[in-house]
């Protein structure tokens, strides 16, 4: 059965639908794989074999009863531990929520269940999704399956590692500043940030509300599209959710014809600070697109270089408010309640003990940016920069259908390498942040290995709001051309675990 873990989600779904294999068998194969590699990868925060198998058996029963489920019925998925799940703890990788069991399901969780996906467990992340390496988890570090001494990216590093390590064919992530695309890039898989509002934030523990976007991870573009379709779409519980049909991403992934498509190369995202091997693969990918019939032009978006500082004002500002609810009163950790201390003191002691370093840093930064006297210069100005960036995207999309760039300036960096240098860490999201600020769709698709370190490089494909299908069309075209060149998926190159 071990070859089950090498199959694509689409293949597994078809096998299960045809009754050739049961959801329980597929789940079991992945649970066995997890037992084997988790000690090294540590992608998960919570796994409960019995709960998972129960879910799988329930799906098998629904299928036997003739219930019409989607193409992923019975397929396992690893779920980022930032989505509320009724039957599993939900911690956002923070001590402050250790052991918390939500009395409700996130919309994304509920839709996974409705579509018959089997949740394998909850994956590790940077605490409250703040980070680019998953080293900020309060529980443990996750390792990159390509090289266990490297980070798997972040914040959705558990989800990227789980898929790259064949522990799950699919996983969920959230992307606030690149937290899906950057981990996908450094683990050699596909990661998609849908259009903001295209997938529901209800039940997703908020980091930065105006930026957070749930999205899929998979080992190939079609699988990502299937998962995207399974959980996205309008949700009346999320006021910022778009009440329009989901772009036809699966169709686009199945029809990777890009002849005549106009592709813009973002001039600002190359050059100094970019790893040579990353740029080499990126330039090859651009040439590949041209050889597939796309019209490639260079596009300048000068303010994109200011996206990073704008993001590090907007996201911390929102997080300083979003994380105020973790106060030891209604749920989660409570520290120092000895009967004499006031609520105020207990709140401050609990938050000091329960939040990690990066979280505290961002809360204070955001508190600063919003304080009277600083608001206009920091938060206010950052919001104006946000407008400028959106306008530059709009102008660019007048000329081109999609924009491309490297997903991240470097390949996976070493565990511990940037831990003490927040600013160096923040650079990992240099290219991904503009799409978050503008709410655009963006994908990372593997485009080869860097020569220096043999680690994966990702190509970022950005598309306008609600043109998510363009990312899938271009991503699938790149994937198809490269796989025929490589003779199979990039991940086949990964040193086996």
């Amino acid at each position, binding site marked *: 059965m071990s070859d089950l873990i090498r199959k694509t989600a689409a293949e597994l779904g078809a096998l299960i639908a045809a009754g050739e294999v049961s959801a329980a068998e597929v789940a079991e194969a992945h649970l066995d794989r997890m037992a084997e590699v988790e000690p090294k990868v540590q992608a998960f925060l919570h796994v409960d074999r019995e709960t998972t198998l129960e879910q799988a058996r329930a799906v098998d029963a629904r299928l036997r009863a003739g219930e019409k489920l989607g193409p992923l019925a019975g397929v396992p998925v690893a779920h980022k531990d930032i989505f509320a799940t009724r039957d599993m703890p939900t911690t956002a990788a923070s001590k402050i929520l250790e052991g918390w069991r939500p009395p409700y399901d996130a919309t994304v969780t509920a839709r996974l269940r409705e579509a018959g996906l089997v949740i394998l467990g909850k994956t590790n992340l940077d605490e409250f999704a703040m980070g680019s390496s998953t080293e900020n988890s309060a529980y443990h570090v996750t390792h990159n399956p390509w090289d266990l001494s490297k980070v798997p990216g972040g914040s959705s590093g558990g989800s990227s590692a789980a898929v790259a390590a064949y522990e799950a064919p699919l996983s969920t992530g959230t992307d606030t500043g690149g937290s899906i695309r950057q981990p996908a890039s450094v683990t050699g898989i596909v990661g998609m940030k849908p259009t903001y*509002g295209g997938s529901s934030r209800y039940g997703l523990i908020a980091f930065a509300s*105006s930026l957070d976007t749930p999205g899929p991870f998979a080992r190939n573009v079609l699988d990502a599209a299937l998962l995207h379709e399974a959980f996205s779409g309008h949700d009346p519980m999320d006021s910022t959710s778009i009440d329009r049909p989901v772009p036809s991403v699966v169709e686009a992934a199945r029809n990777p014809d890009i002849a005549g498509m106009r592709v813009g190369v973002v001039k600002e995202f190359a050059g100094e600070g970019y790893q040579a091997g990353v740029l080499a693969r990126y330039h090859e990918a651009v040439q590949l697109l041209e050889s597939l019939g796309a019209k490639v032009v260079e596009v300048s978006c000068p303010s994109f270089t200011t996206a990073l500082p704008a993001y590090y004002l907007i996201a911390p500002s929102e997080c300083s408010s979003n994380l105020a609810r973790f106060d030891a009163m209604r749920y989660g950790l409570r520290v120092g309640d000895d009967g004499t201390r*006031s609520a105020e003191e207990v709140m401050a002691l609990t938050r000091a003990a329960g939040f990690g370093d990066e979280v505290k840093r961002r809360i204070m930064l955001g*508190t600063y940016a919003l304080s009277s006297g600083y608001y206009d210069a920091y938060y206010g100005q950052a919001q104006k920069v946000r*407008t400028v960036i*959106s306008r530059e995207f709009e102008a660019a999309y007048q000329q081109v259908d999609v924009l491309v760039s490297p997903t991240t300036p470097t390949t996976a960096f070493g565990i511990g390498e940037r831990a003490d240098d*927040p600013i160096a860490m923040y650079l990992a999201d240099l290219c991904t942040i503009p799409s978050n600020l503008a709410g655009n769709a963006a994908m990372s698709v593997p485009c080869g290995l860097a020569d220096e370190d043999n680690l994966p490089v990702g190509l970022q494909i950005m598309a306008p709001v609600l043109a998510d299908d363009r990312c899938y069309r271009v991503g699938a075209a790149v994937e198809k051309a490269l796989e025929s060149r490589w003779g199979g998926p990039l991940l086949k190159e990964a040193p086996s675990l």
Partner: protein
Amino acid sequence: MSAITRDEVAHLARLSRLALTDDELDHYATQLDAIIEAVAKVAEVAAEDVPPSSHALPLTNVFRADEVRQSLTPEQALSGAPAVEDDRFRVPRILGEEA
């Protein structure tokens, strides 16, 4: 000239309800100073006449009908509470008056 003083960091910690030690205050003062200097780069974008964007997309008027939905049971509501008394959340004594 530093962008932020240690006293300001102490004030931020108080506003954010974070009980930080003196060492931590020093540590964050240094880091925040560097970060604030880096993010101050937003000022370089000429954006005087540009309207700020608080949201990613220009949606307006998203409302729900005034309809009652199922609430949680008190057991569910209180299930994660650190302390409970009489179906209420028990909290340490409250110092100030509400704002």
